């Protein structure tokens, strides 16, 4: 198996862009990644596009060749990957697999979502398509409701508190306020976070990530060819994708997302590192409770200790394990199909030392965790300095 390097990263701003369509966002991110790697569109051998619900949000299907051709890329495999909010994590995993296996050398992986042209109830309904339509969704479950039920159970089993949940939102907004590409660049207070409008009890609007438009892209090559493209390659040390039941009521213990645990174990094994070696992470905080569960299931803290660990500030920018230095899905925004590759760009940016006032000091080993649905898909990726 060949070592794989990220030699180019490119992101659009995340936000609500009435004047931008899906394709223009995806093209912008892809072109930025190519420019960053000093690569030409004609060098791209495979195009993987992560996108959750373009056909529902904007009506367009057959998205991968639609985006690729607009970049001047034709005559190659161009495929859309759908795995709910882990769509571009999956596109990345399969891109790395193709390069590692020696099938292809130059793979462009892009993630994109255009969500803000729909009303919130309609967006809620489209997102619910990542749940089990014949069971939980028919009964009235939304994604906030599913994670609210996870939160209630986590509170019941481990004594997790509203303050602990809110501390995740406050911290992520502190980070996002410093990120020029973030959707909601404002700090919030603990009091605001605790007293937000209820969405699904106990979650308020401040526990929920944003409905955003945006795109992100990375260019992958075998590590041995990285120097042809860049003098700051980032090594893909490990990446793993695993699956689990779609419906929340089929999971044995909803306070643990089994797919996160299994994908993390595989990624750690591939990278030859332990959870304690990881210096910083981007995790899938679609809801505040999801970040708390993620840091537990990734092995950073014991089950049930995610809440106290967060409230104590240990995941802050200057804490012992900075989590979501980008602002996370909460503040940076969550254009669902773009999120997985967006996180990988954010980790790579830290490793390259280009995170500006959000730069962490210990930046040679970072992790990205991308979740689909209420845990039916998980992709964990570990990146390291060259």
């Amino acid at each position: 198996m060949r070592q794989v390097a990220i030699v180019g990263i490119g992101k659009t701003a995340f936000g609500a862009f009435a004047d931008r369509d899906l394709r223009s966002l995806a093209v912008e991110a892809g072109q930025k990644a190519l420019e960053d790697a000093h690569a030409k569109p004609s060098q791209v051998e495979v195009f993987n596009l992560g996108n959750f619900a373009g056909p529902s949000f904007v009506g367009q299907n057959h998205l991968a060749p639609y985006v690729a051709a607009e970049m001047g890329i034709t005559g190659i495999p161009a495929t859309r990957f759908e795995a709910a909010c882990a769509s571009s994590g999956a596109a990345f995993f399969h891109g790395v697999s193709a390069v590692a296996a020696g099938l292809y050398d130059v793979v462009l992986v892009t993630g994109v979502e255009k969500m803000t042209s729909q009303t919130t109830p309609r967006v809620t309904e489209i997102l619910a398509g990542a749940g089990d339509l014949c069971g939980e969704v028919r009964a009235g479950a939304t994604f906030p409701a599913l994670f609210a039920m996870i939160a209630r159970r986590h509170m019941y089993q481990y004594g997790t508190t509203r303050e602990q949940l809110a501390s995740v939102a406050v911290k992520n907004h502190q980070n996002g306020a410093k990120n020029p590409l973030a959707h909601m660049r404002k700090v919030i207070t603990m009091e605001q976070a605790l007293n937000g409008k209820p969405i699904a009890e106990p979650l308020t609007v401040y526990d929920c990530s944003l409905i955003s438009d945006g795109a992100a892209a990375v260019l992958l090559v075998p590590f041995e060819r990285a120097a042809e493209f860049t003098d700051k390659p980032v090594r893909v040390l490990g990446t793993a994708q695993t699956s689990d039941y779609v419906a929340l009521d089929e999971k044995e213990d909803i306070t643990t997302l089994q797919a996160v645990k299994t994908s993390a174990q595989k990624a750690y094994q591939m990278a030859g590192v332990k959870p304690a070696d990881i210096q910083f992470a981007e995790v899938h905080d679609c809801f505040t409770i999801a970040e708390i569960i993620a840091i537990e299931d990734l092995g950073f803290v014991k089950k049930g200790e995610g809440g106290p660990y967060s409230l104590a500030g240990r995941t802050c920018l200057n804490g012992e394990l900075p989590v979501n230095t980008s602002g996370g899905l909460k503040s940076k925004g969550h254009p669902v199909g773009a999120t997985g590759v967006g996180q990988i760009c954010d980790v790579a940016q830290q490793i390259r030392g280009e995170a500006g006032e959000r730069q962490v000091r210990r930046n040679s080993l970072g992790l990205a965790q991308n979740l689909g649905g209420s845990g039916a898909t998980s992709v964990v990726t570990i990146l390291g300095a060259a």
Partner: protein
Amino acid sequence: MTNLGSGTVYTETVVWSPPEAYVNDVPYQLAIIELEGGRRITGRIEGDRVQIGERVSFTEFRNNVPFFRKSS
């Protein structure tokens, strides 16, 4: 349709921001109920709000959605 009998609330939430299909129902309580025998099912709660660990009884299916009520 089957009578699901009684069960225990495994987890619950009250939904305030609904999908398009349920905009007229809010706020509504949704719960995962652990039925006798251990099988879990997602359904709606009618009447009084319930909490984790409380006993509930099946009332009826409406549009294939199971409804439960706090056991008296």
